[in-house]
């Protein structure tokens, strides 16, 4: 009996509707689509907030504490860059790829890979290198969501930044080539870049 009902339900899904007009089905489908799509994106955006990121003590007790002392957290202009501004791409495709990759971090959380400050320190270099490599490969795309050489007036900068940016522009450097450790402590045992 139950089996018959189930096959009846499947049959209902696959059988052309005689009861509802095509227009009704399209309208319902259209709005349901918006609802679910919106819900999906809202859910994904919720994982992009600072609160979400520091919901885990691994982030809250380590990198967040360091970041709070930096210019990306507090500055004279009152513009704040939160975790996802630097660590999650803005455009949808790259964002999805990054989010899928990040599912591995859930496994890390469950198995407690960095659940003590000591364990975090042990992994700090590896974690940083992963992120630097990602930033380098994307030509520091997330930095460039806010900063660009086009919009930068190097003459208005302090001398040391001005001179270094001129070199950076001439040599087609990318932000992360020089700006490592600007929001978190630099790891010990950093390797020197091979292209230098």
């Amino acid at each position, binding site marked *: 009996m139950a089996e018959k009902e189930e096959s009846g339900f499947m049959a209902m899904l696959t059988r052309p509707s005689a009861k509802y007009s095509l227009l009704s089905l399209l309208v319902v489908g259209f709005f349901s689509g918006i609802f679910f799509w919106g819900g999906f994106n809202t859910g994904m955006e919720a994982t992009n907030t600072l609160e979400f990121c520091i919901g885990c003590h691994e982030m809250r007790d380590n990198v967040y504490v360091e970041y709070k002392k930096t210019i990306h957290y507090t500055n004279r202009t009152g513009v704040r860059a939160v975790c996802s501004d630097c660590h999650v791409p803005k455009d949808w495709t790259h964002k999805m790829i990054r989010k899928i990759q990040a599912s591995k971090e859930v496994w890390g959380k469950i198995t407690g890979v960095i659940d003590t400050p000591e364990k975090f320190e042990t992994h700090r270099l590896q974690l940083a290198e992963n992120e630097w490599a990602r930033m380098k490969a994307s030509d520091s795309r997330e930095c460039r969501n806010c900063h660009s050489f086009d919009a930068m007036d190097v003459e208005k900068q302090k001398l040391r930044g001005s001179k*270094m940016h001129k070199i950076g522009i001439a040599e087609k450097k990318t932000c992360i080539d020089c700006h490592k450790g600007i929001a978190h402590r630099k790891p010990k045992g950093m390797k020197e870049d091979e292209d230098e």
Partner: protein
Amino acid sequence: MSKSIVSTAVAGALLVLGSQSAFAAPDWSKVAKRDINVFHAGATPIEWMTKKSDHSGSAGMRKGETCIGCHEEKGTLNFNFKRLADKELEPKGAPKTMMFPVSVQAAYDAANLYIRLTFKAPAGGADKGDKDNELKATMLFADAKVPQGDQYGCWQSCHTDARTMPGADDKKTKYTPGGAYELVQWASKGNKVSDGTVTTERKMSGGTSGAKAEGGKSGDSYTITYTLKNPGEGKTVPFGIAIHADNASGRFHHVSLGYKLGIGADGEVKAAKL
């Protein structure tokens, strides 16, 4: 009677000559001043300076940029002093005053080069390792063979394994990978002058600059005057200044970046011809 007049005249002439040679130094009120800031550099030896992951400006250094080319700006030094005082770069503790200006004047005649430093030395040091000397004022002059001596100033002599650096051998002194620095130091105890060198090690004697120095404190202001053999008109000599204030020892000095002294030549400090 006439004999005594003659002897008085001779004695007077000798006195005049004597005082002339003792006070051959220039009229400093007529010599231009250049303010050079000295600062507490923490544990940032040449190895730190040239390592990209520590000092991103090392890329500029490799292109021939000088320290002051990036860091001296609007009459001050644009360092992040919080970072320099932080325990990562200064594990022992930083002095209360991280930077202060030293007024530098220079002049020369055929025989000598005169350099005068005037400054107010700050209290509040973090290291009082030199019980004997409230203050020492040292100048280093790099010869042409010191690698990048005209770019890096004293830093080519400052190494991570030298005494008072974190974890370093207590007996290892400054050294340079090549060439030599002339070292001239005035120490407050007994107005002592040292004329030394920095080569494979630092020696507080055996220098060739024939240095003399006079120093003293008036109120809260120090004035130190060095007299050295003139290296020759037309020469530009790279130099750096180190002030050990408030009984500081070893690396707990306030140091200048590398500057150039022009003797009838160009330089941040130009010696006046007498």
